């Protein structure tokens, strides 16, 4: 007997239809799964046998062949357990002579425990989104019901194999997955006003948020680099619905959406500097999204930036340029979106105290040079803002008044973003930071006095020609924050201040 059960699989963060075909023939008892299954899928054999028997059914002692079609696409994950088990039951006639309509028309996803209960699986949301326009029903593990609800697809939540079998035969034992809970009141995350001093760093973060510029903070230990970075997300505008779904999909594929919510606040990822390049940008023989993709539509904070491995730092080039990561394998290549704001932090030198007001730096210029050279030119080229932090003195801690609250800064940032939307025709993902050379010319015309500033910066402060483009982009954002149509001289002057790592002194005798 032959049975066909509809289910879904993932390629990257997109779902596709898979048909689990089960054929039971007489002959010596045997049991095989074909159709490019990975190790987790192959193990479904053992789980399915136990789950079927422990749910009160017989497992046929015959020759069983399971094919996952289309057979040329790789399949990964444990969610084929349920469709395979149902296929075995259907093919051995346990679900009635003629396959009921519910079995034919529904999609099934779920991992089976040995006792027959259903376990939640990763990637439910992106898989279900493939059903978005089909008006068909999907049965998912109860543990995934909240996440499934986000998809907007008609879903039923099941807690074990027996329930599903009964539902197929006509009972009403399965509950619908419910609806997405309304957005909670805006979370009161940490506020930037809690950070005292650091005038330039706060201003740089404001500019970074407004123009989608990547930023690197240079400061001694304890100057508040991670404190600032954690508050950075609060300056960004709230996530749009599409952004939310996209980020949730990436979380789901990585199995991080087990709490099953729609991701509403911008992700903040801070991988440790010992991370491998594959974990940072994504990879593996069964590709998984890396930290850069988990930070999609949010903030990627890389503390101790020069301590990251060279391959990891260099791997950032593609996502910083193209806002996506392509993981190419011999058999397939998948694309993960990765549009994140990079907030990097580093010490000014290996010992951390170069330029400190009290402590002496014990590094030689050569050590400083080598330390900074770990961040290659091409990467530094993609970071528009460099800002220096100063250590906070205790006296200041008491005396300095609280800074501006995040909400006030976020309001200015939002205005600047609106201006950019109008400028770039509302296209998604466009910002001042991503301006092309042509756009730079048309949007960043400089008044007479301002181009003189650039000349001075080059001749007197030793800036290279390639830092001039960055200065222009940042000037544009500073003007946008002010609501100014044209860039003014003072905007350029301020922008120059945020290129400290470009100054010739940063490399020569410090």
């Amino acid at each position, binding site marked *: 007997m032959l049975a066909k059960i509809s289910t879904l699989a993932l390629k990257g963060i997109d779902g596709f239809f898979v048909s689990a075909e089960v054929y039971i023939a007489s002959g010596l008892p045997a049991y095989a799964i074909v159709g490019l299954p990975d190790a987790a899928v192959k193990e479904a054999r053992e789980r399915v046998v136990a789950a079927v028997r422990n749910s009160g059914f017989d497992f046929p002692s015959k020759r069983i062949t399971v094919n996952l079609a289309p057979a040329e696409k790789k399949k990964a994950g444990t969610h084929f357990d349920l469709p395979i088990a149902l296929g075995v039951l259907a093919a051995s006639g346990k679900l009635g002579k003629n396959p009921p309509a519910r079995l034919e028309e529904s999609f099934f996803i779920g991992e089976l425990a040995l006792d027959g209960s259903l376990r939640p699986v990763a990637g439910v949301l992106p898989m279900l989104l493939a059903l978005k326009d089909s008006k068909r029903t999907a049965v998912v593990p109860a543990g995934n019901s909240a996440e499934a609800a986000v998809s907007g697809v008609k879903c039923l939540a099941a807690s074990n194999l027996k329930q599903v079998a009964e539902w197929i035969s006509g009972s009403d034992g399965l509950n619908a997955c419910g609806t997405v809970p309304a957005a909670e009141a805006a979370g009161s995350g940490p506020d930037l006003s809690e950070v005292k001093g650091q005038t330039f760093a706060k201003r740089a973060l404001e500019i970074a948020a407004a123009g989608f510029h990547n930023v690197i903070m240079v400061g001694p230990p304890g100057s508040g680099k991670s404190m600032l970075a954690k508050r950075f997300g609060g300056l960004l505008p709230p996530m749009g619905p599409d952004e939310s779904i996209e980020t949730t999909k990436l979380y789901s594929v990585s199995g991080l959406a087990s709490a099953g919510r729609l991701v509403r606040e911008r992700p903040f990822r801070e991988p440790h500097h010992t991370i491998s390049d594959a974990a940072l940008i994504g990879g593996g023989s069964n590709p998984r999204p890396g930290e850069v993709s988990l930070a999609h539509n949010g903030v990627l904070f890389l503390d101790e930036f020069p301590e990251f491995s060279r391959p990891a730092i260099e791997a950032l080039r593609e996502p910083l340029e193209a806002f996506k990561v392509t993981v190419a394998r011999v058999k397939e290549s998948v694309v993960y979106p990765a549009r994140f704001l990079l907030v990097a932090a580093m010490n000014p030198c290996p010992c951390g105290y170069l330029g400190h007001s009290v402590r002496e730096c014990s590094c030689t210029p050569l050590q400083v040079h080598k330390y900074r050279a770990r961040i290659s030119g091409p990467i530094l080229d993609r970071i528009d803002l460099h800002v220096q932090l100063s250590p906070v003195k205790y006296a200041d801690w008491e005396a300095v008044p609280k800074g501006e609250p995040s909400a006030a800064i976020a309001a200015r940032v939002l205005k600047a973003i609106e201006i950019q939307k109008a400028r770039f025709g509302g296209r998604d993902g466009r910002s001042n930071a991503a301006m092309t050379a042509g756009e730079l010319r048309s949007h960043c015309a400089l008044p007479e006095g301002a181009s003189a500033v650039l000349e001075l910066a080059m001749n007197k402060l030793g800036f290279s020609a390639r830092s001039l483009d960055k200065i222009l982009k940042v000037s544009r954002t500073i003007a946008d924050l002010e609501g100014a149509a044209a860039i003014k001289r003072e905007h350029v002057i*301020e922008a120059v201040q945020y290129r400290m790592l470009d*100054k010739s002194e940063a490399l020569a005798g410090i």
Partner: protein
Amino acid sequence: MQANAEAEKLARVRLNFFGCMRSDWLLRLMGLYGGAAELLKRPPAEIAGEGGVSFATALRLAAETAAADPEKELALARKAGVKVLTALDDGYPELLKTIYDPPLALYVRGELKNMPAAALVGTRKATPYGLRTAARLARELAEAGAAVASGLARGVDTAAHEAALAAGGVTWAALGSGLNEVYPAENRKLADKIAGSGGAVISEFPMGLKPMPANFPRRNRVISGLSLATVVVEGGFESGAMITARFALDQGREVMAVPGPVDSPMSKGPNDLIKNGAGPVEDAGDITACFPYGALAAAHPGKKGESYLRPPAALKELSPDAGAAYAAIAADEKGLNADELAQALAWPAQRTAASLFELEVAALVASRGGRYTRV
């Protein structure tokens, strides 16, 4: 006779390969036997017997000089564009010949002009005050037509070399390593610049000798020996700059010092020298005043109105904001970084950035590792 001179030069270059703390006894032995070539022909036992050195040292002298290859060394020097001078050659500085133990061989990259020089020496861990003063003195000396001698080390030495070059002057750097092993490595470009702009990088050590701590005090006698006056800008009691000052004293040269704050550890050395009679230096006029009459082509520069005591005139042309920022930066001996300045003046980032830009472009402040200090 020509061939003899050639052989003697090679012998001296060979003898120079012997690693020792001082060369005065070698010079004495050369005097005893009538030249390096003769000295090298003597068996160790004879040298030990007649020369008053231990047999072990004489053996080591024989072994080390035998291992050397002076012809190869001269070819190596020629390839690197380096002249090798011995006291027999024209161009060996006359002033250097008059010290107690002049170098047997002098490797010169660039041009060792016959002109009066002053040595500016100081610590590697200089304060902004020391760097600023070293640079000003070097500039004034260059403008007065004197060469600035120093040791190419970090800190005061580098500031002095750079300022002399920037003023279009002549500067000499004496190394404690071979000329193919410039130390510290980050000053390699500076060394090229010195050699390429009428100055000289010199060493008495064989081309490929790596920097060794023991050799640095030894090269200090060359710095002071090339100079009419040695000025200690900054340094602790035990610093290399103080060693140079002692050499200058032994060589009968003028020793001078830049007075500094009494609570600055880096001014302990110069202040102590002044206490013991060294001339205090406020500007280059104080230094050139002790040069022999007529040593400088130009007239002695007078006191230039002590312009460094007042806020620079350029400040008048800048905005009031820049003036306030300058005052705040100058008030702090260690300087301020951009953020500290913003906090000190309670200014927003934009305003602070604008005034810093004005000051930096006008070269009134300089940034080192993100700290702004007055120039």
